[in-house]
């Protein structure tokens, strides 16, 4: 079923592009469909991973790899997530736990998760994700390699993590029987650097006032692009976004919102269909122009010595380490993007979301940015009452309208 779904999606988007209906979002979605098809092909060597695994390194080893939360988001977006979550609940999972992980577990129980060759867990960003990977490893009877991500960027920590990544390469080689080709690794790193360089340009363009970024343009962008890094496709997708944003700025095309208010979206988007972003744009002239994870927080990786760079990248993810570091990163984004307000969905069951919300709110308020805290299950649409969230967002917009401009 999933293979057919992704194949149909891929063919549909390719048809649209051939028919002249192309956009950066279509190129991005096409690559998502291709990834999904490969994951469910039954022929590719696949690995289920944690969010901060070095996907470009795995790509260089010929492994189709993906973080498990992708499956939760995909099931949510297709509107079928409920039965998978219920399946997990039947096994005794708390219904208050993260629905990304409950849906993944349910998919595995119902045979909707392809059997991987191995799994790569990461201790960042959450222990829940690692627990799911351990569960999957037991269910599939496959080996799990865990990357222990240190919390600070020090020489010792970088060496510690870089050594683990070398061990990971040996682990993957042992299981797949394939050795890492150093020339291919060098090329992969160069491609990663190119794509990340262009992504920096995209984010710089999105900061323009008014912003060329509409609310859905860069939804989930940073976190998903990590899956494509190392390949030419990541460079092509990033280039398409950069060119489109440049075109919009040159043409004065700022979409439906007109850029009255600029929002920062904290953590992850709501993954199922809803009308809130459309409402914000069309009724309040407001766009979400930056997401917390849409940032390149690391320097270019040295193609001749990539492991230290891979390690620094994993350590640099804003969700890693103390909340103070995360708050400072959000403040940096708010200043850079001249944000009028921030929305924190506080995904149910996520300690990153709910545990940090007071600190995040206070930190952003210190620089004058108001924060709307919501309590949304970003995956399980059955818990979503749109009217309740409309009221909160509308009141937030009404409040912004009475405040003096923050940055002008």
């Amino acid at each position, binding site marked *: 079923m999933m293979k057919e779904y992704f194949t149909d999606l891929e063919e549909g988007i390719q048809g649209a592009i051939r028919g002249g209906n192309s956009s950066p979002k279509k190129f991005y979605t096409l690559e998502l469909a291709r990834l999904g098809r490969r994951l469910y092909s039954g022929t590719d060597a696949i690995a289920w991973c944690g969010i901060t695994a070095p996907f470009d390194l795995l790509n260089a080893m010929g492994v189709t790899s993906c973080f498990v939360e992708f499956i939760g988001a995909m099931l949510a977006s297709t509107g079928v997530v409920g039965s998978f979550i219920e399946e997990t609940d039947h096994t005794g999972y708390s219904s208050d736990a993260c629905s990304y992980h409950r849906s993944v577990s349910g998919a595995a129980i119902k045979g909707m998760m392809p059997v991987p060759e191995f799994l790569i867990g990461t201790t960042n960003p959450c222990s829940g994700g690692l627990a799911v990977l351990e569960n999957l490893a037991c269910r599939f009877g496959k080996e799990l390699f865990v990357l222990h991500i240190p919390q600070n960027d020090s020489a010792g920590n970088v060496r510690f993590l870089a050594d683990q990544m070398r061990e990971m390469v040996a682990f993957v080689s042992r299981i797949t029987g394939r050795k890492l080709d150093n020339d291919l690794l060098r090329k992969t790193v160069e491609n990663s650097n190119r794509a990340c360089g262009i992504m920096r340009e995209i984010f710089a363009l999105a900061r323009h006032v008014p912003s060329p970024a509409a609310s859905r343009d860069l939804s989930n962008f940073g976190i998903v692009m990590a899956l494509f890094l190392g390949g030419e496709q990541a460079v092509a997708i990033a280039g398409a976004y950069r060119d489109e944003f440049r075109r919009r700025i040159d043409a004065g095309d700022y979409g439906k919102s007109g850029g009255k208010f600029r929002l920062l979206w904290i953590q992850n988007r709501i993954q199922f269909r809803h009308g809130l972003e459309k409402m914000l744009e069309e009724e309040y002239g407001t766009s979400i122009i930056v997401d917390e994870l849409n940032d390149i927080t690391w320097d270019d990786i040295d193609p001749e010595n990539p492991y230290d760079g891979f390690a620094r990248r994993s350590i640099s993810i804003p969700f890693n380490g103390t909340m103070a570091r995360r708050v400072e990163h959000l403040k940096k984004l708010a200043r850079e993007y001249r944000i009028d307000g921030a929305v924190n969905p506080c995904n149910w069951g996520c300690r990153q979301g709910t545990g940090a919300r*007071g600190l995040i709110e206070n930190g952003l308020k210190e620089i004058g940015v*108001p924060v709307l*805290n*919501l*309590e949304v299950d970003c995956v399980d649409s059955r818990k979503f009452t749109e*009217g*309740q969230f409309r*009221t*909160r967002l*509308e*009141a937030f917009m*009404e*409040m912004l309208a*009475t405040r003096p401009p923050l940055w002008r």
Partner: protein
Amino acid sequence: MYYLGIDIGSLSCDAVLINGGSTIVASAVVPTGARNREAIARATDEVLRIAGIARADVAAVVSTGYGRDRVEERLSSVTEITCHARGITALLPGTQLLIDIGGQDSKAILLGKEGNVIDFAMNDKCAAGTGRFLEAMARALQVDIDDMADMDIGAEGKQSISSMCTVFAESEVVSLIADGAPVNEIVMGLNRAIAARILSLVKRTTLQYPDMKVAMSGGVARNAGVVRAISFLMDREVSVPKKPDTVGALGAAMIAKEKNASRRPVVSA
């Protein structure tokens, strides 16, 4: 000319009519029931009847509340957060912090001098501690909800209600009655549970509340026991206007007047 504000909530539909001088001419509160369009019509007819005016005399209507988009004749709809803020500032000028507890939600609203919203926090996930919660508890106690307002008098605060889930709290109340707990102690326990919940919203909005002028609106503000409990926990006087359930509709009427003025072209003499 007259301006009409309609606040259609989950339990009641409230209407307030003001004149060009922003004076309240009429107000009405009717049960929302299952058909909110009928409730809107009844509340509108009632204020027109009291004021003795025709529908054509109403220059603009602004709606608020969860059913605000159901008011077909509205000039615009505005959230209840903004409307309650505007309404309370008109009734109790200088209010800095407003607590609004309605049928299915509760809010703490931090106000600016002009009645603008500086910040707000609302209940999350469930409607425990709201009007619906009180209705369920009155049912468990087998008393009229209006009679609950003074049933805490004489209690010493010995009984706490541990659960704020409406269903669990209802069975807890039934168990307490069966165990012979005094009703006034149970009611005070319920009131304080509601107050504790609202206090967390207040603290999320501001920690400066001990120095603020605090008011309360919404239907639950008619329950003096809940107001006393909130006042006790906040260690502050909590002011309540005469008709707390019409504060949102009043704010909507005032916004209707403003919006009507801004849509008319300015004609110089």
